[in-house]
């Protein structure tokens, strides 16, 4: 997913003089071809994210489209004010590409776990947040990032995620994608938790619970109208995300549910990381499973709420 994302940036840059790439201190050889062929628009500035975001804003104020890539935690937490003011307030065309959204860097511990990136960025006016589920979807998203107005955050998964989305439906920033139909329950997911959602829906179907799955790759702006339509016809709504429960997709959907005055009201539950710093290492999927970000947990929650 990351490789394709960056390759697309290089591909676009070859034909579009507006496009710049900026990195902090990325892995040796990253986008080497870009660097060699278009050195004037390739900037590797070291471990100084606040400065990098400011430079990106300056370039974008001059009409450039700047793709900035580094580890997700550093691009969101460390330089938060620069992202708010230099990018958000100026409403400039800078795309932040966050490596390892969620718990991808589980072996490296809490400093590298981007479990709050969506919450942090949701609070910034003008910011668009996208979290594709797989490489195929990334491939459909990237061409749209060139002309999209304003700052954007692109959340990257670990890579090699199973391909679950299809080219039948064109990607649109700000739109949701129904992946399964169902009338008893609705699972709402973003990013790589689509896999657990589809697996859960399959299991639940076998148990006689007809479960819809709605994939929400754009967490902001949220397609509220479509979400309300999909939620209207089911009694049970469960959200799942590789993110803290404080302020991510689940919170955003909860805000919509709470203001919608559904009658009868929905049975609603969020699945995600509780309000803790994950305190054990291991692999991404292990950490996710420990906090119930899994098909098994989804099945159990939907079963309970459907009773």
């Amino acid at each position, binding site marked *: 997913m990351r490789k394709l994302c960056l390759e697309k940036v290089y591909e676009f840059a070859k034909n579009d003089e507006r496009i710049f790439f900026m990195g902090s201190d990325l892995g040796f050889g990253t986008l080497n071809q870009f660097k060699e062929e278009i050195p004037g628009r390739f900037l590797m500035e070291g471990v100084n994210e*606040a400065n990098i975001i400011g430079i990106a*804003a300056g370039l974008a104020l*001059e009409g450039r489209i700047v793709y900035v890539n580094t580890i997700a935690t550093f691009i969101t937490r460390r330089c938060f004010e620069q992202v708010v003011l230099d990018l958000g307030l100026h409403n400039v065309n800078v795309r932040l590409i966050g490596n390892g959204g969620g718990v991808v860097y589980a072996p490296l511990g809490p400093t590298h776990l981007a479990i709050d990136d969506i919450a942090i960025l949701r609070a910034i006016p003008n910011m668009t947040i996208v979290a594709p589920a797989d490489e195929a979807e990334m491939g459909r998203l990237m061409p749209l990032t060139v002309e999209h107005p304003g700052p954007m955050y692109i959340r990257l998964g670990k890579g090699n995620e199973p391909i679950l989305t299809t080219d039948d439906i064109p990607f649109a920033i700000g739109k949701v994608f129904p992946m399964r139909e169902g009338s008893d329950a609705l699972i709402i997911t973003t990013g790589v938790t689509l896999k657990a959602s589809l697996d859960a829906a399959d299991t639940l179907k076998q148990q006689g619970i007809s479960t819809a799955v709605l994939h929400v790759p754009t967490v902001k702006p949220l397609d509220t109208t479509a979400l309300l339509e999909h939620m209207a016809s089911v009694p049970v709504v469960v959200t799942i995300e590789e993110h803290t429960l404080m302020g991510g997709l689940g919170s955003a959907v909860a805000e919509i549910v709470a203001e919608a005055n559904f009658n009868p009201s929905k049975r609603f539950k969020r699945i995600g990381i509780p309000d803790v710093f994950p305190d054990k290492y291991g692999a991404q999927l292990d950490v996710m499973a420990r906090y119930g970000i899994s098909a098994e947990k989804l099945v159990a929650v939907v079963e309970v709420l459907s009773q």
Partner: protein
Amino acid sequence: MSNSPTIAEPPNADSPGLDRRSRALRKIVVRILEGSRRGHLGAAYSLIEILRVLYDDILRYDPKNPKWSARDRCILSKGHGCLALYAILADKGFFPKTELDKFCQEDGILGGHPEASKVPGVEASTGSLGHGLSIGIGFALNARYAQTDSRTFVILGDGESNEGSVWEAAMCAGKHKLSNLTVLVDYNKHQSYGSTFEVQDLEPFADKWRAFGFAATEVDGHDVEALRSALTQVPFESDKPSAIICHTIKGKGISYAENNLKWHHKNKISDEEIQSMLAELEVGVDA
């Protein structure tokens, strides 16, 4: 240091008296305060001559076409000094002077910190400290890539130079040898709580800039001739960004506001204070 240009007078203890133009610009600031009765007066009055020389003699711009692509860019990174910036921009015709009467008011465009989307001539929204130099590097890198001769000037505060992001940016500008970038530091030696020497000492200040790859010099920041002389000689070296440490006096021009932290940001400015400021600005040595 060997790379220090030898163009400027050392900081002058006997700062020259303010000429007619310097006093006129300060009176425009009083006009702004008359409407709002509040503002960062001390931080603005240390800055007047720096802005005056930039906009009178150095910068290329067109007030009728503020986004003219060939213009020089100027960022007031110490955004709280905006009373001075608004005075000069209005004087140059970037926006009608009537806007000055609506400082910090609901129907105005001039806030307590400058916003690029609202004020013609303001290149970047500033106010939170430590942002302007990085944005300026973006401007300068773009000019270099586009092969234009547009230059970028960034005005920093001394208190602002406590921010780590300033030095991230300094390191980066040095690395890129951005000779089209000039930093001017308004070194009035006071920050909100007290003197810079007590709160967070910046010395050896010019040497710090040199160590980060700049060619640096020091001038009396109220000496119009010294500022003009320094600014007409940038870049001081062909492969380095330039830094000009401007030794200034906080609140310069109003005797009781000079070096007086009560006037760093002043609220509830009275009629009597307005009148006494205007009276003091009437008196001076006309150049």
